[in-house]
């Protein structure tokens, strides 16, 4: 089977946008297949961050001087850009966080502690990343609520009958991954959110693994909260986004106190700014937000439709090639998947597989992918995960396959 690049994308040209991709690792060309952990950065993002520090750096929202005004405008322009990217109805619904993890924790601690009572139920799924599970466990411990999880099938798909059964009159929240980081499963979040909202639940979608691969429209999803990380969508580390429905954000108390989130402060008490400022205490990650803006511009210029189509082709090719090898078991074979191929090599620990692949210049992730319940569900301590971005090539997947051949020879 051969695969050619989607006609829309000139991959060879686009790869030149990513300086790191031309590196050699251990004397071999880098084959970067760890995009679900973090994507590489195009020159435009690297330059935007550098240019900000070189020519625009100032604190925002407080100075009247030229640089501060310019930095404030640039920062708020990215907020408007993120709102457009997600099709939020207002940029006031966009809160900058340090990443998906902080966004989920913000909702758990602000909305959760004010709205969740003892005996309430919080519904997650058995395929959540720890960042969309542990914050709810913490909230449960603080409030006396109970966390319940929708189980998954052998293919790594949600058990929708169980989902229906798990919805009770005590369920307050559905928190669900859009795309599973460990399995690649694309969940039917639109239908699940609609169903949950009919039962009066608040809904949060973890978009860390979906935003890099498919267009997201929060009004179409109709979720109350949507979270993603900048660094997985070609942006800098240290910045993420929480979209929150305005009606909910307005009712939520602050979760961190400090500068920039207040209206008036006396020694006795304070009143708080409206959202989104209420949830951005302290000097924000200004340079990272500027970099995120450049990343979303880059993605928009390349186009999420051709990006998604390209990644689907790569995933299909890799799945076909890896399935053709003896002694390999795929973990996660859902009908609808995005850009993640998780597998185990019989009799060889994933860390040993990754070490051999590393020697070939191939970067994959080996481990539990911060999803230990998923590993338990499939009876493995860990998996090898190859995850793709549009800049990967079928030839790189061939290098992966050759590396897996070497694994089998070495550990035979």
């Amino acid at each position: 089977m051969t695969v050619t690049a989607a006609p829309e994308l000139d991959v060879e040209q686009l790869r030149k946008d990513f300086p790191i991709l031309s590196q050699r690792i251990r004397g071999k060309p880098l084959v970067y297949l760890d995009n679900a952990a973090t994507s590489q950065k195009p020159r435009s993002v690297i330059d935007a961050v550098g240019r900000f520090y070189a020519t625009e750096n100032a604190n925002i929202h407080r100075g009247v001087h030229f640089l501060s005004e310019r930095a404030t405008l640039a920062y708020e322009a990215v907020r408007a850009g993120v709102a457009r990217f997600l099709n939020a109805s207002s940029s006031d619904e966009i809160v900058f966080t340090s990443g998906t993890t902080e966004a989920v924790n913000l909702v758990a601690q602000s909305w959760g502690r004010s709205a969740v009572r003892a005996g309430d139920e919080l519904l997650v799924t058995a395929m959540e990343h720890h960042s969309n599970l542990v914050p709810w466990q913490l909230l449960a411990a603080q409030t006396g609520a109970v966390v319940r999880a929708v189980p998954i099938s052998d293919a790594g798909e949600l058990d929708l009958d169980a989902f229906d059964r798990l919805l009770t009159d005590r369920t307050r929240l559905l928190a669900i991954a859009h795309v599973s980081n460990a399995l690649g499963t694309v969940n039917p979040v639109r239908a699940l959110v609609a169903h949950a909202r009919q039962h009066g639940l608040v809904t949060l979608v973890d978009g860390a693994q979906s935003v890099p691969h498919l267009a997201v429209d929060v009004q179409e999803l109709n979720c109350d909260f949507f979270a993603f990380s900048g660094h997985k969508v070609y942006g800098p580390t240290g910045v993420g986004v929480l979209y929150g429905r305005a009606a909910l954000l307005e009712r939520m108390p602050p979760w961190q106190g400090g500068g920039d989130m207040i209206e008036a402060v006396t020694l006795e008490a304070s009143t708080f700014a409206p959202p989104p400022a209420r949830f951005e205490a302290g000097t924000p990650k200004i340079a990272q937000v500027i970099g995120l803006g450049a990343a979303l511009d880059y993605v928009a210029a390349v186009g999420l439709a051709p990006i998604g189509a390209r990644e689907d082709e790569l995933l299909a090719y890799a799945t076909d090639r890896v399935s053709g090898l003896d002694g390999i078991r795929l973990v996660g074979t859902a009908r609808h998947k995005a850009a993640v191929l998780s597998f185990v090599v019989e009799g060889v620990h994933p860390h040993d597989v990754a070490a051999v692949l590393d020697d070939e210049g191939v970067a994959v992730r080996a481990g539990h992918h911060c999803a230990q319940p998923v590993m338990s569900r499939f009876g493995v301590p860990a998996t090898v995960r190859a995850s793709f971005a549009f800049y990967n090539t079928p030839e790189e997947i061939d290098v992966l396959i050759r590396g897996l051949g070497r694994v089998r020879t070495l550990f035979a």
Partner: protein
Amino acid sequence: MPSLSELYQNVILEHNRSPRNFRPMPNADRHADGHNPLCGDQLTVWVRMDGGVLEDVSFQGSGCAISRASASLMTSMVKGKTREEATRLFERFHRLVTGTLPPDQAETLGKLAVFSGVSQFPIRVKCASLSWHTLRAALDEGIKTTT
């Protein structure tokens, strides 16, 4: 440039395939569980003492080739040694895998010298030393399994 063949020496691959003393020990005096939460490796080490001597040592668990081969070689090497000898061996082994053992002392480690390549792969030091830490825990504060 560290090479893969230095990490996965033949003795290591062979002990990974056929680990020695890979069994539970019903009549052990003590045992301890070791766990590396970063990679999910876990193992149990059992010890039966005869006075101050490690009369029998065994292990079971799951882990990568480095951790499994290290546990296997450890059980072979410490059997028949006193606690103090085993502790001193661990100290030298730890210096070997962290690259702080003078080269002329490597041979005092016998077969354990095959782990010298680990020092080139810092992330694998924990794999190589998990079984040793677990043995030490068993000797120091191990849960007594029989009375």
